């Protein structure tokens, strides 16, 4: 109330003059702008809640009247169908709930891989398009124009057809030393069977990553102090692969491999990645990368030319100037639209239903059809996409805020 009062005094000094009495000015309760605005908003919320509630009740009543089963109990019922690609153990005797979980994980997997690849291609192509080399710039431009103007679904079909047509049948699968096989049933690699003490290798990977972070900090400090550079990248690579490998041999090679071998129809054993995933992943990455490339280009062009000239004047060569001066500033322009592209990519993955990859919409659609519980499944779809999108947004906002601090 104190706040409210002072605000009123601040905005309407003339009022206090007219009332001319000591103490706060008296305004009729319903004329108070604060009360009014809160009141209107409260009414609006009440109306929205009322209609929302009505809608839910109506739907339930209508479902009941039409004898359509509803409720969440079906999630525990046996699904009875199989899915072609699962990250967690799943069989036809698993439940509908688990089938949906498989779908959610597949969506997350393809979105995650797609986002990383699209970002890498996008940054490279975006920079290429600004190249002074005519050919490089043209190649980038042609790629962008094709990739963002052909509908994603069409690209997905093309990739799928290409993947299936280009690869041999499993009986004639291409292989690299009989360990990695490639055929129109997908790519098959040996399965790792973890033995005693194999967990140490995981520890080694974590240790290697920690070491790399420390190395980077140290190298940075040293460069600030002495001006000497250190080959951080190569050393990091060596640590990342060297340490786990050393551990592996030191422990006496505790990991066994189950190699795939020819079966009657397909390869048996090993772990595989289906061609539907590949087609979806390529299509999403290539398509989204073209938009990211344009975002990167606009970000770079938004950085004042003086910045580049100043860094040249300081003796930086074009590459470090781009990497150390221009891109960090461009990031502030790039990140917000980049976040939208990530969200788009995630939601676009639902087109996979057309090429038979069991992500959320495809797997959920099958559950919907077999169980008949449309309203529940659609609710799950909305909730999952909303959650994934909000988490992505939150992460990108955090990243955005962080990049701002880097500014000097």
């Amino acid at each position, binding site marked *: 109330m104190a706040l409210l009062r002072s605000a009123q005094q601040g905005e309407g000094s003339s009022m206090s003059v007219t009332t001319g009495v000591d103490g706060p000015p008296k305004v009729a309760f319903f004329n108070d702008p604060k009360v009014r605005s809160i009141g209107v908003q409260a009414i609006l919320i009440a109306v929205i809640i009322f209609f929302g509630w009505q809608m839910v009740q109506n739907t339930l009543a209508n479902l009941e009247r039409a004898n359509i089963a509803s409720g969440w109990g079906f999630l525990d019922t046996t699904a009875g169908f199989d899915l072609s690609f699962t990250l967690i153990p799943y069989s036809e005797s698993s439940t509908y709930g688990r089938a949906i979980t498989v779908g959610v994980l597949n969506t997350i997997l393809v979105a995650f891989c797609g986002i990383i690849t699209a970002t890498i291609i996008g940054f490279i192509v975006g920079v290429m398009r600004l190249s002074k080399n005519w050919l490089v710039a043209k190649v980038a431009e042609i790629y962008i124009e094709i990739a963002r103007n052909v509908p994603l679904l069409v690209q997905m079909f093309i990739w799928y057809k290409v993947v299936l047509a280009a690869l041999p049948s499993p009986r004639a699968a291409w292989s690299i030393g009989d360990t990695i096989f490639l055929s129109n*049933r997908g790519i098959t690699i040996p399965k790792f069977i973890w033995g005693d003490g194999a967990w140490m290798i995981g520890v080694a990977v974590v240790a290697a990553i920690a070491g790399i972070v420390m190395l980077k900090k140290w190298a940075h400090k040293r460069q600030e102090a002495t001006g000497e550079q250190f080959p951080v990248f190569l050393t990091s690579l060596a640590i990342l692969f060297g340490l786990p490998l050393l551990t592996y041999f030191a422990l006496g090679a505790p990991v066994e491999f189950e190699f795939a071998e020819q079966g009657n129809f397909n390869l048996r054993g090993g772990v595989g990645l289906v061609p539907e995933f590949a087609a979806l992943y390529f299509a999403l990455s290539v398509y989204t990368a073209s938009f990211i490339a344009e975002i990167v280009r606009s970000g770079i062009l938004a950085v004042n030319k003086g910045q580049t000239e100043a860094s040249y004047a300081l003796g930086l060569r074009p590459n470090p100037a781009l990497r150390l001066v221009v891109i960090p500033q461009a990031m502030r322009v790039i990140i917000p639209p980049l976040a939208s592209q990530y969200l788009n990519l995630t939601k676009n993955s639902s087109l996979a239903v057309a090429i038979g990859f069991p992500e959320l919409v495809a797997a959920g659609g099958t559950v919907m059809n077999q169980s008949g519980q449309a309203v529940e499944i659609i609710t799950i779809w909305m909730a999952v996409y909303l959650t994934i999108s909000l988490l992505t947004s939150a992460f990108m906002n955090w990243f955005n805020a962080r990049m701002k601090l880097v500014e000097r």
Partner: protein
Amino acid sequence: MKRTLLSLALGTAVSLAGITAASAGTLDDVKSKGFIQCGVSQGLIGFSNPDDKNNWTGLDVDFCRAVAGAVFGDGQKVKFTPLSAKERFTALQSGEIDILSRNTTWTMGRDTSLGLVFAGVTYYDGQGFLVKKSLGVDSALKLDGASVCTQTGTTTELNLADYFRANNMKYEVVAFEKADEVIAAYDSGRCDVFTTDQSGLYAERLKLKNPDENVVLPEIISKEPLGPVVRQGDDAWFNVVKWTYFALLNAEEAGVTTANVDDMVANSTDPGIRRLLGVEGDFGKAIGLENNWAANAVKAVGNYGEMFDRNVGPETNLKISRGVNALWSKGGIQYAPPVR
């Protein structure tokens, strides 16, 4: 602000009214709009298939025409909605179509928990497997480890899982929403096996690049009674659809055909035929139609046997024999209660 609120309230009220209305009696709705909206497949030769002028043909299509004949005396008063396996039940539940006639298997779950009800079995089918001859497989029991292409949202994918599990075999399923995608994937070698209802196998085989390089395996792994579906709790419409189906069977049994139906109406002395064709009794009125409803249904598409032969019979590309779909009096299981 006031205006926004008002329009919001109005808009919501309208949409709510939209939800609560719907579903009076389908028979009355159909009569007042003047045609039947019939849900069919997106193209399954012999059952429901459009030509390049969007003329639909097939057993399922003809069944809808027979109902239109019974209701309007004109078998052409039908509009078709092509539906994927996945879309079909929602389309019927929501009232987008009046009848679903899309090689749909009658199962207990579908009959009881979807708010739908099956009105008969226009084709008794069973699930089979199609493989490339070059694989040298002669029995479904030798399919251990195979990749199998199928359509999602079907009984097919469920039977498939049951069959492989029961026989302790491994397999990889690749499921698509559209039949054409399934066929394309099978044709391009993504799968070793294509599975669906046997009638569907014969029909889809015609779409392959080299139909003759593929064989249908002898095993039939399930019961697939295919028939028309309507909404539950709409008895008047349910009766019309159910009795149209019975009328086509009774007509075949009594020897009433497109060619002789007018003659039969005028001259038949057989009391059973006279009741069926509406010359005697008020059976048509009892289901809310004209008394000559059955005669009109037969005029629209012929009796059940004619309909079968024209669409899937031995003279067609599908070359399917009557088998269990013969009348009960001829060794099959098609049987209709009498009109009396």
